[in-house]
């Protein structure tokens, strides 16, 4: 067989890919590099190498309390979104449920609706009927936003699962609860884990709803960074951002291990 790709395509393609990858990674690389500066100011390339700004961040009351807020919200959100989303995905995977396609669309709709519109809606609702924005309000908003990820990953796994196993369990006398517990949940495990990691990551990183529901008491880490960016960022902002990039890398690895990136991404 003739070569599938002519040399010119390989060279041009390779060059184009290299350029695109530089373009994609440039902003992240610059942040990481700038966080390592020994100097007083935010510069690229950094001046000298040191971890002094990481020490600064870890000693900063403001950053630590924001990180704690983000962690609290993301943990609540991960639990709620994973439980509710998994149940919904299992329900949606049952052929006998009427209106499945429509329902599936409704469940995925928070993924496509602009979060600025959702954010302002939440702000209005909590201001009119509640006591204004709170940590719980933010967690509720993030649960809506992240549940579709869980529904999607769990549904993807269940679509490939063998229905004969549950049928066999049923024939052997297992009731609905036992079948869920011993057959369906183990079958969905990879999807549930990947969905949970997704939910945690999206909630921890989210910036738009957090901006609308921001109060002095509820300031997440992305909001702290955003606030700094509006004025004059110091290398400490780069250090926090680098820590957030590292966390994202961990989540990506976890998703790859639990379900596989390829399956999640397309």
């Amino acid at each position, binding site marked *: 067989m003739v070569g599938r790709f002519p040399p010119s395509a390989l060279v041009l393609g390779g060059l184009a890919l290299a350029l695109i990858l530089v373009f994609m990674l440039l902003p992240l690389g*610059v942040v990481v590099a700038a966080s390592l500066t020994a100097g007083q100011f935010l510069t*690229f390339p950094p001046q000298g190498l040191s971890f002094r700004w990481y020490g600064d961040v870890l000693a900063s009351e403001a950053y630590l309390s924001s990180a704690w807020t983000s962690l609290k919200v993301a943990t609540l959100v991960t639990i709620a979104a994973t439980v509710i989303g998994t*149940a919904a995905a299992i329900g949606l995977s049952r052929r006998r449920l009427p209106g499945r396609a429509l329902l599936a669309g409704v469940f995925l*709709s928070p993924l496509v609706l602009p979060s600025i519109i*959702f954010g302002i809606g939440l702000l*209005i609702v909590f201001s009119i009927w509640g006591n204004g924005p709170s940590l719980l309000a933010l967690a509720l908003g993030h649960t809506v936003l992240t549940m579709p990820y869980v529904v999607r990953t769990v549904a993807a796994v269940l679509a490939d699962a063998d229905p004969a196993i549950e049928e066999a369990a049923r024939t052997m006398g297992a009731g609905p609860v036992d079948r869920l517990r011993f057959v369906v949940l183990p079958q969905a495990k990879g999807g549930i884990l990947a969905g949970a990691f997704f939910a945690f990551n999206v909630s921890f*990183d989210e910036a738009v709803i957090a901006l*609308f529901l921001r109060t002095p008491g509820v300031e997440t880490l992305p909001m702290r960074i955003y606030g700094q960016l509006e004025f004059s960022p110091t290398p400490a902002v780069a250090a926090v951002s680098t820590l957030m990039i590292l966390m*994202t890398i961990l989540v990506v690895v976890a998703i790859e291990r639990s379900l596989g990136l390829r399956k999640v991404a397309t």
Partner: protein
Amino acid sequence: MPGAKGGQGLVEPIVLVTPGIALLFGAFLFPVGQILVLSVVPSGEELGAWSNFARFFADDYYLRVAWRTFRLSLLITAATALIGFPLAYAMARAPRWLAFLLLLLTVLPLMTSVVVRTFGWMMVLGRGGPVTDLLMLFGLSARSAVLLQTETGIVVAMVQVLLPFMVLTTLGVIAGIHPHLEEAARTMGAGFYRTLRHVVLPLSLPGLVSGSLLVFAISMSSFITPNLIGGVRLPVMASAIYQQAIHTLDWGFAAAQSTLLLIAVLGLLVPYLALMRRARV
């Protein structure tokens, strides 16, 4: 068996989806619906029901903001399609290890907080950043050129932020094109580029179109990146809405602008969802 277990079988899935539906109705559809109501209901005693919309269309400032948002979104979409197609094709046809590497390098930026990515672009495009240095090196710019607070800067940063959506949507479609189709064209004498243009590109069109609709819809409503890169001098619709909702506290007007944005975005997303459904079957 379907007959005997039918009734009981229906209870289980309904019980399972109920908490999710309750959450979506209470915490999603209700707040969004609230915006629609607030945009129509008169905000002051002397104002009519549709006054917020009338105000939008009568004010030159808001029309210019809407036009800028539309224009930039169009540019961003075109650029992501142009860059995204070759990247998605490479991902679909590259050897396994390379495909995985490309996927990883697409997903990693996508999953990084948009605030962090925008921060990176602020440094790249700002004074003393690498882009400025490069432009000066090639003599393209006499003095330290700063792309921060320019429309070019917004487009560059937004393309990086949204490219993964285009690539992943297109990849899903290209991965479904059987390589035999390309081989057939090649065996019949078509060159690589001709095959790409006349076989792969037309077949990837559903992916490119739905990717474009998605990217366009997201960029129309994006806030963080345009706001930080463009600054106060170059507001887009989302920043105008934020301004009204948080600083001016004119919720009615903010809701009216949100409704207009929602209508524009839904007009794009409905065809996107229809295309995605057809691609899946």
